[in-house]
């Protein structure tokens, strides 16, 4: 994965730049020692690493503004970082970049149950947003699987989703406003604790812009009353096609589950060996979860089971208590960990129209043979967001490259059937060079022009999202 060559002028000016940063921040907020900056050399895409020029850990929006003003004057690239859990390399620095980490800005500024929002600093973790309101019966809906660690700042940058977005939407549908610092240090508020704001929907384009338009320091998030209860049902089928048809029939019947998760045989086998959740050995497994009062859950699950029976399931198991519900989710939740036990793996994130599911799974199977690497599929079936896990051996020369080439082919297939390269992880550096598969040059140009407006010097996270050849002239300017 190519990154731009660091600017030698900046590297040689490190002492001056860090001195200027230290002049506006407390001493413990600027990290320049090489042993310490190494902790920030990568995010969760660990195959690519590079220690940054320096790391700053501000405690306030004003401090972020002061840092950005200096970097803007010095022409130093800036990489914003939440908790560093990006699977796409969204927080990967270059040697001439300053990382702004928001982890120390993790407070709750206001909770307002009457108006159903919470105002937080952006370094707060996703799960602790819910943690701040759940004793009062509320929750924050987007639930990416890294929710214990990932920060709201990163969620906004990547427009993160989760297992429950079929009902509640993704980050952009739950974000009311942000306070954000532009590259030149200007502090702006976009949106706020009300339902829409005047003029163009800037918030809509800021969410998911991968830290390229500004550094978000605060957010107003919509919180929802917790449902009375939730219960999953597990069903096994003897082919992917039948499981796919069952998903489609459930949706058509007017039931709106909060989650429909899908696992194929390789995934079931691996997780069963690891987590021993008691899953049936079959070709495809669905976990469908519904919410409401016990009577409402019975009604919805009754309908779902009726539909499932029409597809001759090899297994149909409803959780009868909390413990059984946990067991049903256990395998799914440990799928990634299970894969990590047996192999190195790369997790993809393409989305496809739900109707293309059987075709895409068949093609992935064929490609697996061609490339000689195994694949396990686990994904959010209700919304078509796939997470194929390609297994490889990082110690075997050439295996990572083969894996990346295989992954690229799967993502091209997703686009070919009408889907997209990434459903919730973001482009980062990982899928940067595949953008031309999904977008024509003029489609990308329209996006680049938005960045031109927010960050005319192209200093914010400049080497991400778009192919380097496409952004070269702008970055050099």
């Amino acid at each position: 994965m190519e990154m731009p060559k660091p600017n030698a002028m900046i590297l040689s000016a490190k002492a001056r730049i860090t001195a200027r940063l230290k002049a506006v921040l407390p001493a413990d907020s600027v990290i320049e020692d090489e042993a310490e900056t190494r902790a920030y050399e990568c995010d969760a895409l660990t195959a690519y690493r590079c220690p940054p020029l320096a790391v700053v850990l501000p405690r306030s929006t004003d401090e972020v503004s002061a840092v950005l003003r200096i970097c803007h004057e010095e022409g130093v690239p800036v990489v914003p970082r939440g908790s560093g859990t990006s699977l796409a390399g969204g927080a990967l620095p270059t040697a001439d970049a300053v990382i702004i980490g928001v982890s120390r800005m993790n407070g709750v500024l206001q909770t307002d149950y009457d108006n159903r929002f919470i105002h937080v600093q952006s370094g707060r973790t996703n799960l602790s947003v819910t943690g701040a309101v759940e004793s009062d019966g509320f929750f924050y809906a987007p639930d990416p699987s890294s929710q214990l660690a990932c920060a709201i700042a990163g969620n906004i940058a990547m427009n993160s989703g989760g297992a429950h977005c079929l009902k509640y939407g993704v980050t952009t549908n739950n974000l009311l406003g942000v306070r954000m610092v532009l590259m030149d240090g200007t502090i702006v508020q976009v949106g706020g604790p009300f339902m829409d704001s005047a003029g163009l929907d800037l918030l809509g384009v800021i969410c998911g812009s991968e830290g390229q338009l500004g550094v978000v320091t605060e957010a107003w998030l919509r919180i929802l009353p917790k449902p009375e209860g939730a219960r999953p049902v597990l069903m096994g089928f003897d082919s992917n096609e039948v499981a796919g048809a069952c998903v489609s029939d459930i949706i058509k019947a007017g039931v709106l589950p909060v989650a429909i998760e899908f696992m194929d045989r390789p995934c079931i086998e691996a997780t069963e060996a690891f987590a021993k959740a008691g899953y049936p050995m079959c070709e495809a497994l669905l976990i469908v979860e519904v919410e409401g009062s016990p009577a409402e859950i019975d009604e919805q699950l009754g309908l779902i089971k009726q539909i499932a029976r029409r597809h001759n399931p090899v297994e149909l198991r409803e959780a009868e208590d909390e413990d059984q519900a946990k067991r049903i989710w256990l395998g799914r939740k440990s799928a990634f960990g299970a894969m990590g036990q047996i192999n190195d793996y790369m997790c993809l994130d393409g989305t496809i129209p739900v109707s293309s599911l059987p075709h895409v799974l068949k093609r992935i199977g064929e490609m697996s043979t061609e490339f000689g690497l195994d694949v396990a599929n686990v994904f959010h079936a209700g919304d078509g967001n796939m997470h194929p896990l390609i297994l490889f051996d990082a110690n075997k020369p050439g295996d990572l490259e083969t894996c990346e080439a295989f992954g690229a082919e799967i993502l091209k297939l997703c686009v070919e059937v009408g889907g997209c390269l990434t459903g919730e992880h973001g482009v980062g550096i990982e899928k940067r060079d595949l953008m031309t598969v999904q977008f024509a040059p003029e489609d990308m140009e329209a996006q680049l022009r938005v960045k031109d407006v927010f960050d005319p010097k192209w200093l914010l996270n400049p080497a991400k999202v778009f192919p380097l050849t496409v952004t070269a002239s702008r970055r050099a300017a």
Partner: protein
Amino acid sequence: MTPATEAELAEVIRAGTGPMLVRGGGTRSIDHRQGAVIRTTGLSGIELYEPGALTLVARAGTPLAEVEATLAAEGQRLPFEVPDMRGLLGTAGESTIGGVVAANASGPRRVQAGACRDSLIGVRFVNGEGTVIKNGGRVMKNVTGYDLVKLLAGSWGQLGVLTEVSFKVLPTPETTATLVLHGLSDAQAVAAMSAALGSPYEVSGAAHLPGQGTVLRIEGFANSVAYRAGRLRQHLAAFGSVDHMDGPQVWADVRDLRPFHGAEGDVWKLSVKPSDAPALLVRAGAEAHLMDWGGGLIWLRMAPGSDLRARLGAFDGHATRVRGSDPSVPVFHPEPPALAGLMDGIRRKFDPRGLFSGLAA
């Protein structure tokens, strides 16, 4: 001009020399700009509908009625409950789906299902240079590149001309129940609506019509609706008696602003934090009002030429004049200075000659 294809539309825009106005059916136009009218009604037809994937793709000039009828035939609907503005604005004609998107037109269900922009998953449009651009697609989870889909929703034709729009749709619930509370003041009504929306009973509409009552809606499968309506009545007991109301008509009234039909005067729309609504209503001194979205949306009828913004002073939110003719009062709320620079920057980048925004590069 009524281009028959996207390519023809692009040609018309490239050849454009002066101000241009984009019109679908013209049923919800609220600004008073002048210019050569480009009609999108030649770009019509549903291109893809997959009920099992909850996805619909239509050309921008497709009549809203055709989209709604197609969805209804499969027991589905647009989640955001599109208002019909003809009665309020005195317009005629057929609303188009592209016009709905350009206005981000969203009705009472917004409190539960989000606005039009939340259901919109893809667009194609022609920018002010006559270049065709696509963004998003036909899948509901998509974070590939910047989300220009949201930017186009509610852009009122200032960034270009939409040619195709894609939606996530939802099943139409089996049953609807409406509960009504009588005699509440604005402040009590907001408190009751907040209590309802903060409950786990999935309220899909919360509106207050002075003189008529405070209404709450629950939708879903019959047993579930009966259960939740019962629980909600108990939950709101402190606000007085909670009765069932027959028929869903009141929601069409709220959605289309029927209480204001036939009455003279300017009409304003305020987007606010619900708990601020009662105090703002006092400051507004309107002739008539109603609240939707649990108090987050206030509709006001005012004497002609009133400047609501001047009466309110600073507040969290914004005001749009939906009906009125005094040219000295802007239709859209002035954008905060720091954001105005960004918004105008985007308008100029998408439309360097200012055909649609009036701003030249």
